[in-house]
């Protein structure tokens, strides 16, 4: 087990280094950082000074090393646009994005899994057809369009829910949460459904496909032949076997939820990291782009790691295989 985790950790480290290299090349080769920091009328001498001080004249490998060390200490430099520490900017915005992502994931899971199980078990019932149609529509509607339509219906037309912002936020010092106030919850409803809808349809279709696959296996047939009640066959034997891929995909989707939050945050003017990233792209604010890239990659790597470990817990076959494989 430990050997397995160590191996995965090393792999993750390599991925992070590659991403860091990408982020670093953005810094190094896109535009001149010095130009971004000083005025147009700055003399060449001052620029050269700054260049020296920033270490831009050092060999590239040294610069990269420094970049990695700084990044590991959460130091991504200063935003060209905001003139503030990028890490502080991100820390301010992170709670909003993480809360949104969390709520969407919960929504996607508790609606998507039961719908998937139902449509897998009752292939031809009319309700399954309704679910499948809804899911297809859900996949076909771009996230931003869903958001706009919801705003149109629930804010403009019915006036039930706020169309932008986080509502009232409670500051806990290191974390600002919208989950402690009524207006915070109201403000979160539409963004989290918008963000979670796509994942929900994905999970539903995945669970359905896996259920259909598993229901055809010999061990399910044998379970039926042993006279087990449907409940035990469907949930004990079939559903549990579908969980392995579902865990993987859901876990990986958690990462893309955070990335997709860019769109939702734009539609609902949700003050999160995604919105800031988008603004950074439009203004070519490289430090924020680089930091966001590294952060997203880090989240992905961590999620991947957790998914792998969960895998391990659910599927007893892996415990043996991996252990012996690692033992060699």
């Amino acid at each position, binding site marked *: 087990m430990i050997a397995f985790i160590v191996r995965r950790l090393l792999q993750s480290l390599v*991925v992070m280094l*590659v991403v860091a290299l990408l982020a670093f090349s*953005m810094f190094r080769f*896109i*535009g001149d950082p010095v130009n971004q920091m000083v005025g147009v009328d700055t003399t060449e001498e001052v620029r050269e000074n700054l260049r020296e001080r920033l270490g831009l004249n050092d060999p590239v490998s040294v610069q990269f090393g420094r970049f990695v060390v700084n990044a590991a200490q959460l130091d991504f430099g200063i935003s060209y646009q905001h003139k503030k520490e990028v890490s502080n900017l991100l820390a301010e915005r992170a709670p909003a994005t993480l809360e949104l992502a969390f709520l969407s994931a919960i929504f996607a899971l508790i609606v998507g899994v039961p719908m998937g199980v139902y449509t897998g078990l009752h292939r031809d019932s009319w309700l399954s057809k309704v679910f499948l149609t809804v899911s*297809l*529509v859900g*996949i*076909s*509607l*771009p*996230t*931003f*369009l869903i958001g*706009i*339509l919801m*705003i*149109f219906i629930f804010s*403009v037309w019915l006036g039930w829910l706020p*169309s932008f912002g986080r509502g009232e936020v409670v500051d806990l010092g290191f974390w600002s949460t919208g989950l402690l106030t009524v207006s915070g919850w109201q403000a979160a409803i539409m963004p989290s459904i918008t963000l979670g809808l796509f994942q929900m349809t994905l999970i539903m279709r995945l669970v359905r496909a896996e259920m259909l696959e598993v229901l055809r296996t010999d061990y399910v047939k044998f379970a039926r032949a042993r006279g087990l009640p449907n409940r035990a066959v469907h949930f004990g034997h079939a559903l549990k076997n579908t969980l392995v891929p579902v865990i993987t995909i859901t876990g*990986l989707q958690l*990462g*893309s939820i955070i*990335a*997709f939050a*860019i*769109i939702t945050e*734009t*539609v609902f003017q949700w003050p999160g990291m995604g919105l800031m*990233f*988008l603004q*950074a*792209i*439009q203004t*070519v604010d*490289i430090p924020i*782009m680089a930091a966001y*890239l590294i952060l*997203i*990659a880090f989240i*992905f790597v961590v999620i*991947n790691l957790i998914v792998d470990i969960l895998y391990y817990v659910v599927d007893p076959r892996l415990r043996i295989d991996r252990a012996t494989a690692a033992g060699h």
Partner: protein
Amino acid sequence: MSVVSSLPGRRGADMLRRAWDSDIAYSFRQSKVTMVAAAVTLVYFVFALFAPWIAPHDPYDLSSVSLMDSFMPPVWEEGGDPRFLLGSDDQGRGILSTIIYGSRISLAVGFASVIFAAVLGVTLGLIAGYAGGAVDAFIMRVAEVQLSFPAILIALLIDGVARGVLGNEAQGDIAYFVIILSIGLSFWVQYARTVRGSCMVEKNKEYVQAARVIGVRPALVVFRHVLPNVLGPVLVIATITLALAIITEATLSFLGVGVPPTSPSLGTMIRIGNDFLFSGEWWITIFPGVALAVLVLAVNLLGDWLRDALNPKLR
């Protein structure tokens, strides 16, 4: 069919009949939804191809656009103008015309990205599958890492980098290439994986060894056998990625980093209209939104059907 005939016309009819009787045609005829989806897609294609002849106005022709006509509601609402069936936007462009021209851009960008992604993916898949070893490991590792990032994020990053390299002003035609590049680069992985798998299966078959013995280049043999085999899956992936590419383009344009605003795609129109949603001019955003949703839904339905029809195991 025991009818003996040497007439070429009859033979052609026979082939048509065989195509009509084939499993794919059968499943097509069985599914009304698919037929409707195909019809809808066809309508979009025709509109896109013949936009200048079909659209009431040319929304890009500034001389035919007048600010006097801005914010016209749809024709059935109070104050509607019969010249603007679905109303007009903030600059006096007819919504119907912009939708027709916008679909044209959405489809063009979508197709170009899919073709780019397919060519890139199939090539890399062939290389990875045939070469094996370190080349394969490298390509597939890149694919794996990329696959764990959502396409939209990759497209955004590439777009951001391009902006950095080209400067924010380098818009216009280059913007199209940038967006096609960024969408195409984010969708090649699926093609590569499929082709690679098929390639690896074929590579080890005996006829490839035999080809080597008689001096034919085995790579050539493998490619010649792999390509027909992967045609079906590639077509399915292409259809599904076409829908995804259209969504991605619309999303990028909505986020303001897509096609240039002077020639708006559906996504751009939705973004423009979004600002007026609260002041009551809902048609500027809702109609393009519906047009986009219907197009993507139709393509998705076709893709779904194609996948099931080509893969009888799933039925």
